[in-house]
């Protein structure tokens, strides 16, 4: 594999316009990636779903070359109806359009140069891969005291120009004091067995609010990996919602550092998986100072041969007294071949804390089905109603009512 990577890397350097300095830093990341390779099940974080094996099995030979020189056509039929929004459009790893037409232009700054180094400790070769092959990295800065009027939708799409290719994306966000951003990641893919590697960096200053909704609904055979690093200052709030349903493989990783007092993080996730899909959510919440709060709720509904995994870690520093941490994961297994794995982890060094986690998995309750059937529903309807209610619970946690309704419509949940 390493020869292929090196060739593809040289080809990208040749066809794109990078500065000398950029090329040097990319080379260092590439070297690191080649040394470590794709993560595999020997690494604790990849124990349940081995990306190395899955790439080999689903894609085979992965190409790392992307032609960044030619623009791609934007297909407006993919756009979300019935909700006015700002847009960033990614196609095949290229940013085709950034559109903040609903906003005050002075309040949003877009930079296309970022620090070459990654500011936090990580042991994740996919971030090295991302940094080595990424085309352009944009940083979006929201000014102090500004709340975006409309949500920002990032459209992630691939078209039939790329096949069995690794596509990398990266965006950095800085939310100024007392600002607010609603961000929706919307995936519309052509099925061509690509490996998409997304890396977001969020910096939340005092009193800012970030709401991030990831919607992967439409069936496709791409493999996806998304990593969110969130740094939070005093009194900031981050809310993440993940709908993990469309891709053949999707792993969402969230690393959240609660650096400021009274900051809080909320993560809610839904796995709705059918044949042969394998999805995972892995979270690390680091409570580093006093009076911080985190809440996580993850629910899975698993069909034939579907496999979901949840690894959640709450870390409480010895300084972080009065921490409130909560984790709950629940799964319904619909078929003999479905599988649910969980590793809810607590690492606590302070004594005045309230931390708990729970995990439950099993089949649909036959008694509940009987109850519904005795009131006139057929078996399929009863089952659907129960699943509907099971998932609705998570969607109801979304605090933005406009987006909550949009997501309910997309999933097809009834109230």
């Amino acid at each position, binding site marked *: 594999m390493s020869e292929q990577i090196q060739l593809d890397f040289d080809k990208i350097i040749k066809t794109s316009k990078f500065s000398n300095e950029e090329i040097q830093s990319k080379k260092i990341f590439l070297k690191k990636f080649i040394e470590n390779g794709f993560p595999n099940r020997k690494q604790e974080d990849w124990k349940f779903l081995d990306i190395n094996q899955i790439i080999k099995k689903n894609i085979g030979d992965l190409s790392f070359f992307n032609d960044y020189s030619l623009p791609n056509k934007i297909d407006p039929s993919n756009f979300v109806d019935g909700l006015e929004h700002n847009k960033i459009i990614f196609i095949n790893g290229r940013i085709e359009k950034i559109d903040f037409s609903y906003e005050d232009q002075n309040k949003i700054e877009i930079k296309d140069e970022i620090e070459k180094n990654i500011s936090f400790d990580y042991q994740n070769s996919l971030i090295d891969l991302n940094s080595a092959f990424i085309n352009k990295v944009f940083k979006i800065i929201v000014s102090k005291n500004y709340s975006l009027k409309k949500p920002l939708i990032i459209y992630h799409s691939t078209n039939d120009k790329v096949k069995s290719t690794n596509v990398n994306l990266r965006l950095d966000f800085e939310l100024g004091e007392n600002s607010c951003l609603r961000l929706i990641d919307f995936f519309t893919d052509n099925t061509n067995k690509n490996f998409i590697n997304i890396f977001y960096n969020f910096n939340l200053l005092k009193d800012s609010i970030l709401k991030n909704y990831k919607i992967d609904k439409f069936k496709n055979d791409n493999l996806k990996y998304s990593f969110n690093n969130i740094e939070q200052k005093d009194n900031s709030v981050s809310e993440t919602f993940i709908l993990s349903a469309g891709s053949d493989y999707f792993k969402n990783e969230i690393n959240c550092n609660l650096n400021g007092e009274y900051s809080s993080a909320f993560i809610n996730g839904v796995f709705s998986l059918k044949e042969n899909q394998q999805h995972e959510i892995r979270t690390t919440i680091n409570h580093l100072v006093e009076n911080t709060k985190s809440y996580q709720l993850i629910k899975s509904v698993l069909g034939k041969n579907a496999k979901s995994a949840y690894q959640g870690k709450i870390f409480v520093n*010895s300084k972080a*007294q009065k921490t409130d941490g909560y984790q709950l994961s629940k799964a319904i297994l619909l078929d003999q071949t479905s*599988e649910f794995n969980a590793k809810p*982890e*607590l690492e606590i060094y302070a*004594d005045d804390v309230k931390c708990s986690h729970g995990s439950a998995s099993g*089949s649909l309750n036959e008694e509940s089905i009987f109850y519904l059937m005795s009131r006139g529903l057929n078996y399929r309807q009863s089952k659907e109603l129960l699943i509907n209610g099971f998932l609705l619970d998570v969607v109801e946690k979304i605090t933005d009512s406009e987006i909550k309704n949009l997501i309910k419509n997309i999933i097809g949940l009834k109230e």
Partner: protein
Amino acid sequence: MDTREKDIEKLKDYKYGFTTDIENIKAPKGLNHDVIKFISNIKKEPQWMLDFRLKAYERLKLLKEPDWQKPKYPKIDYQNLYYYSAPKSMKDKPKSLDELDPKLLETYKKLGIPLQEQARLNGIAVDAVFDSVSVATTFKGELTKHGIIFCSMSEAIQKHPDLVKKYLGTVIPVTDHFYATLNSAVFTDGSFVYIPEGVKCPMELSTYFRINASETGQFERTLIVADKGSYVSYLEGCTAPMRDENQLHAANVELIALDDAEIKYSTVQNWYPGDENGKGGIYNFVTKRGLCKGKNSKISWTQVETGSAITWKYPSCILKGDNSIGEFYSIAITNNHQKADTGTKMIHLGKNTKSKIISKGISAGFSDMTYRGLVDISSKAKNSSNYTQCDSLLMGNKCGAHTVPYIKNKNFDSNIAHEATTSKISEEQLHYCQQRGLNPEEAVGLIVNGFCKEVLQQLPMEFAVEAQKLVGISLEGSVG
């Protein structure tokens, strides 16, 4: 001074910290073919046993020490250890208790297990293991009447080779992880129990382990086989003298329950934990595994872990037989600089299997405590269920409490429920108790005992009293 305070005064320092001046026979230092042959030879073992050891040793050479655990420790020099140490007077094994070295008997008296008296009064059959060798087994006559075999492992290898050959290494194979394999290569003694078909063992069986000699590792091996429809309750207690260097204890315990059999295994582990600065103490790296081989069988582990500098063990149940049940009740207490990484594994293979895990962890001082557990329901284990509850209690902000459960469900007919909480003793609870006349220490003792009650209830009576006291003593000085 009331009696409790007197108790504590008496026991404040590690009560079992004395050494006994007894001449020892030791194998040469280090780990190699010759040492293994020496051990096998001195125990007059048959060839198959030596082959078993050598096979494990060959395998050991290929293995690396695991390093995923939370408590890290300085590298152990395996070539600088004695793998065999036996009281000299044991060379010609005594026929009865009266022939025992009086010094040995005195040691056990200090430990609180006067073998002779115990034989008469308590009605508990005791097998005492001193350093590496089993020194005395009481109540032989009564047990033989029921056809129960309860003896040292070396004796079992001589007298019941068929049974040992049939079951030894079937639950913990020689090809297991590093410490288990090390034990398979150099184990020196331990207890062997066989309960014949349909027999309910009329008394509790008990083993007391003691490490005496310095620079020795203790590697005992226990094998308990409960044949169809039988029942046995087995107790294990451990102590060691105070020494500045760390000592290694790597035991293997195998339990096998056939159809309708039940084994209840209780441990009160109180190895020397090191002084308050974390110097010395025992490394307790033990492999305990039970196999519910037959239908409707049941294995239950109960442990009270208060000692050792580092405790690193996961008593496990493999639920192979249909309708089999696995249970795990644990209290782990760490104080000063102690570290523990303990928990259980419940592996569901048969249909309608059930498991229950109750774990209570208490950390104080500068200690670190981890619960690590696995619940794995395989795709064939239809209609199985697991319930896990692990609670941690923290005292002070210099210590840590961690929970790392692994949950794998591959069967849609099965249910897993897991709960964990971490908290501290609330001011209100303390206030309530103090208002009613208890001093702060007593109040904490009361609350902690309440916290542990679910587990303490599972212990046999004699042990429960001892364990309750231990809980109080272990937390001594951590309040306020």
